[in-house]
């Protein structure tokens, strides 16, 4: 029989329909239906200036909203042939890593909620609030910060702000080892996560999995490594695991949180003096540029016409990750309860992933993005 796990569900934040084909309690097959969140952002952006388009790019997704603005700003800077000053690049790294910390902790808390482990779920949310305080001290808002402009960042940070940020994240570092050990060495939690929803390395290559999901299955690739700022001024190596089950994906995110806190310390200790913004005049051209968002690789392809945007195309990581979850991971779960936790461990972000809407009653297809 076909069991629908509907758009409104206690464990899912976003509307998506998961149709499981079951035989008793065993899961045989799965099918995923999208289409609830399509808003037509790429079509609205055509013919606008960069100030209006960057406001829209931030609202593609609310959880990973910082990385979209940084990729947009860097693409247009590459079209004009300029580079942001060095102090602005360090400030961008600090905000990028703080955003990654809060996104990974939110993803893990959703995973624990679907497993019904209330202690870990509430404890992760308590630790996440310190990272949100640090973001608010630096940029002025918790979500949708409006921090990047073309040619640099919007505001400067004085020394007392940077000291306050270090004090706030020291609260996370104090408790983080004990908290990680609760998950890593707990026997019953381990029974629920190890060897569930396995995806091997060949399947990850076939399904084009990216981000922590691909790295937990053995693909050693992180788009921060070839990025000019990280390559020249920071020491950084990707973190990866071999097994490819729910436990490996969650532990990979915890290890990346530790790495991000270390990168923030490196940035604040070595930040140079200088100005934070240079004036830029936008010219016509085309460029495509990629960056590492918390969920994987985000790619922007922009063509400008004088001062305005002519065509834009955004490719977000959740499209590939949800596809590989549907085709490979959900064939290896034992029961219906394991199917829901496997889907939550993939860390889906559906607001980024909607491309086309098909009207079931009339059969009409609307595609509101072009390239």
């Amino acid at each position, binding site marked *: 029989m076909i069991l629908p796990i509907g758009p*409104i569900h*206690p464990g899912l934040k976003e509307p998506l329909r998961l149709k499981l084909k079951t035989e008793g309690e065993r899961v045989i097959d799965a099918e995923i239906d999208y289409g609830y969140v399509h808003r037509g952002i790429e079509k*609205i952006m055509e013919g606008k200036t960069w100030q209006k388009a960057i406001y829209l790019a931030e609202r593609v997704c609310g959880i990973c909203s910082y990385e979209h603005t940084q990729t947009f700003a860097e693409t247009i800077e590459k079209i004009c042939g300029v580079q942001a000053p060095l102090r602005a690049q360090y400030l961008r790294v600090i905000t990028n890593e703080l955003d990654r910390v809060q996104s990974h902790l939110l993803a893990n808390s959703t995973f624990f909620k679907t497993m019904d482990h209330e202690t870990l779920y509430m404890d992760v949310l308590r630790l996440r609030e310190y990272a949100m305080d640090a973001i608010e001290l630096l940029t002025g808002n918790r*979500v949708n910060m409006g921090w990047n402009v073309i040619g640099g960042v919007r505001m400067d940070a004085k020394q007392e702000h940077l000291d306050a940020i270090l004090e706030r994240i020291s609260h996370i570092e104090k408790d983080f080892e004990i908290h990680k050990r609760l998950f890593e060495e707990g026997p019953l939690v381990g029974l629920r996560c190890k060897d569930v929803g396995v995806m091997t390395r060949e399947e990850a290559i076939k399904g084009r999995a990216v981000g922590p999901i691909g790295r937990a299955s053995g693909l050693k690739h992180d788009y921060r490594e070839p990025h000019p700022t990280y390559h020249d001024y920071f020491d950084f190596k990707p973190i990866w695991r071999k097994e490819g089950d729910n436990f490996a994906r969650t532990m990979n995110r915890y290890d990346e949180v530790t790495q991000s806190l270390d990168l923030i310390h490196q940035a604040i200790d070595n930040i140079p003096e200088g100005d934070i913004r240079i004036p830029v005049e936008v010219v016509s051209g085309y460029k495509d540029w990629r960056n590492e968002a918390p969920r994987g690789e985000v790619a922007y392809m922009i063509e400008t016409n004088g001062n305005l945007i002519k065509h834009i195309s955004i490719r977000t990581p959740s499209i590939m990750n949800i596809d590989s979850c549907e085709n490979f991971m959900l064939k290896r779960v034992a029961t219906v309860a394991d199917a829901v936790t496997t889907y939550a461990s993939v860390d889906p972000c559906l*607001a980024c992933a909607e491309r086309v809407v098909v009207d079931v009653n009339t059969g009409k297809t609307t595609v509101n993005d072009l390239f």
Partner: protein
Amino acid sequence: MLNNLKNIFRKTSIHVCIVNCGGCNGCDVELVAVTSPRYDLEQYGIYLQNNPREADIILLTGAVTDHWKDNLRRIYTKMPEPKLVVAIGNCPQSGDVFNQEGGTVNAPASDFIPIAAEVPGCPPRPNEILEAILAVAPGAMEARANEKDDE
């Protein structure tokens, strides 16, 4: 007398369901933060349960996309009386930036279901959401219950 007893429980123990009609998830992230130990929604007797058939209040986020046009009305009729809808964020009120040429949203949401209270912001902060729910919910639940019982 039995009604007075029922009203005491309706005011102090409220079940809530979150319906996301196609937003960017910024408001959903702040709603998850409202249930975290720092802002703690459960200490006021409000329980986040996410089943429309057992809910007293629906929290609506997101601009109404084409898929949700028919389904929103269906979910509203499935809730048992007395019931309320609180709209959170700018998107259900006016569609925010998406309500221009090229977008596919049908704003405002009050074309489809009646809305009792609104919290503006993009996204609103967790303490603003908490203040709005606490100011509106207990009094309005009691008023709706009285008007239904008088019929």
